[in-house]
């Protein structure tokens, strides 16, 4: 296995009072070392659940029921199936924050207000590296300096509420980088930030990716960011990957009607006359999934007796470009 991560046929079920229902179905993707994969889709399409499952951070009511999440340790070359690990066991804890790190959407609430930033980053450093408290503190200050926090040596002893939103996201990135991870999962890291700060954070992540040679899974619904950072893109809809390919495949050769709609809904500079087209309807609820192709009620290319009856097969468009749609069966 050359890839750092291979997710195949992943299925995640939700147990609720109304019964069990799948939240994620037949999701597969691969990620090579040092590359960036973007998971794209509307809210509720399952991209955050997919990301959380890689670190087994799913809430109790969500369970991986099928498929594998293979992770290859860059140091030992050893391959682990994360889907088989106990979610509260020590094996997954050794990976968390060490080989695989994660940053979250809301920098305002991702740190406990009761401890200093230095304490919370130093905690991860001490968990995975054999260092003293003093050394952990030095490492933490170095990290804060690296992610562009001014006066890092004083910032170590500050509390989260003394940081601005952008600074907190930088601190979150510093925490994620603290043990030099091979894979970074970024769950909408820029969504809660101002536009100018968003650009800074994306730039910072790209610089650090070069320096640390990390693979990144970037979860977003912002196609502008995708075009800027991603090597590969997975378009998700209602818990399934409907199209995936290289970033140029998606932006220039989009096949799935949903991908095309997403692209038309994105504003582009320089095209002021062009009208934005909203996608009609909403992502279906978990308990009223449409039969057949899950997108068919909203689809402009809907074919009666086909789309609403059968789930489409995966079709290979070219090399790595794959689409799941009856138009290409």
């Amino acid at each position, binding site marked *: 296995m050359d890839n750092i991560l291979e997710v195949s046929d992943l299925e995640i079920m939700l147990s609720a009072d109304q019964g069990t229902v799948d939240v994620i179905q037949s999701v597969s993707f691969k990620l090579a070392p040092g590359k960036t994969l973007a998971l794209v889709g509307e809210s509720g399409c399952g991209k955050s659940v997919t990301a959380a499952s890689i670190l087994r951070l799913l809430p109790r009511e969500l369970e991986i029921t099928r498929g594998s999440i293979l992770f290859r340790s860059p140091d030992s070359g050893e391959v682990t199936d994360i889907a088989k690990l106990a979610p509260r066991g020590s094996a997954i804890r050794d990976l968390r924050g060490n080989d695989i790190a*994660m940053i979250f959407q809301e920098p305002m*609430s991702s740190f*406990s207000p009761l401890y200093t930033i230095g304490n*919370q980053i130093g*905690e*991860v450093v001490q*968990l995975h590296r054999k260092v003293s408290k003093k050394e952990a503190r030095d490492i933490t200050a170095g990290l804060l300096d690296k992610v562009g926090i001014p006066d890092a040596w004083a910032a170590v002893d500050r509390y989260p509420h*003394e940081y601005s939103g952008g600074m907190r996201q930088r601190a979150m990135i510093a925490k994620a980088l603290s043990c030099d991870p091979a894979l970074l999962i970024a769950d909408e890291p820029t969504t809660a930030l101002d536009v100018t700060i968003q650009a800074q954070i994306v730039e910072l992540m790209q610089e650090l990716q070069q320096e640390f040679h990390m693979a990144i899974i970037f979860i977003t619904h912002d196609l502008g960011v995708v075009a800027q950072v991603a090597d590969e893109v997975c378009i998700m809809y209602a818990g399934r990957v409907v199209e995936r390919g290289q970033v140029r495949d998606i932006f220039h050769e989009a096949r799935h009607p949903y991908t095309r709609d997403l692209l038309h809904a994105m504003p582009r500079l320089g095209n002021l006359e062009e009208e934005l087209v909203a996608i009609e309807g909403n992502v279906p609820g978990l308990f009223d999934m449409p039969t057949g192709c899950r997108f068919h009620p909203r689809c402009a290319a809907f074919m009666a007796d086909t789309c609403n009856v059968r789930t489409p097969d995966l079709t290979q468009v070219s090399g790595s470009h794959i689409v799941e749609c009856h138009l290409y069966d």
Partner: protein
Amino acid sequence: MLRLIGERLISTVILMAAVSVVAFILIQLPPGDFADSYANKKAQGGVVITLEEVDEMRNKLGLDRPLYIQYFDWIGGVLGGDFGFSWEFHRPVSDVIGERLGLTLALAFSTLIFTYLLALPIGIYSAVRQYSIGDHVMTLLGYIGLATPNFMLALILLYVGSELFGLSAGGLFSPEYAEAEWSLARFGDMLAHLWVPVVVLGTAGTAFQMRTMRATLLDEINKMYVIAARAGGISEFKLLMKYPVRMALNPIVSTLGWELTNIISGAPIVALVLSLPDTGPLFLQALLNQDMYLAGAMILIYCVLVVIGTLVSDLLLLWLDPRIRLEGAR
């Protein structure tokens, strides 16, 4: 931080002064005074006391002076450590209270410790294992604990204590130790009796704090900062203690003073039912006899305990939560 503590201490002193005025007014509120109640008692015993004699007694005790003069006279003495004279016991108030106050304090603090020692772990367990059998059992016990009146529980435990464990009914000591000097054996004997009033006084508070802990922890346990910390690889137990539990301690600590109020105001009734030799029955007797200085001293001591409890909970909160600390620094 220091300024914040200083401000808090100053407001405590002001509060104490206000409380002393209220305490003094409170003991004056019932109609009549010690002279009247003394005359009444004598009259019931068949002794005739004339109005002149009552007035003379009032004059001798200083009860005919204006209220504010009586207050300043009293509070001046209190500040100098002199709580006045108990007319009923014909001894200084400090002597009468002194021998019993230790037991009251021991009871109050044992109850506090019992409450938190039980409520916190059970609350944490209930939240972490929400809807498990254990959680349901604890919830049920909690509601029963909240709903049972103290005196009722006291009677039940009294019965259970003497029937099943052969303890002497009520009191804090077995008969052979009641008048004995303090010794290790007497202390052990006290502990064997102490659990009954502690359980009676602590049950409602324990149930309440348990529910508080469970509810707050359930709120915190799925917060983003907990998931973010888990993503760093910390073990589940350490995670629980360092992040959500520490956060959930805030409402617990801030009600500490209030919990102490509950215990202290509930204690006299329980002490009466269980015939404990602490300040409870003494307090009631002092009020009935209008033994002014004794009752005043008791109310003052109870109030001071509550004020101190609140102060301690505020200081603990300052120490626990950096947000409050920084708020004050600004």
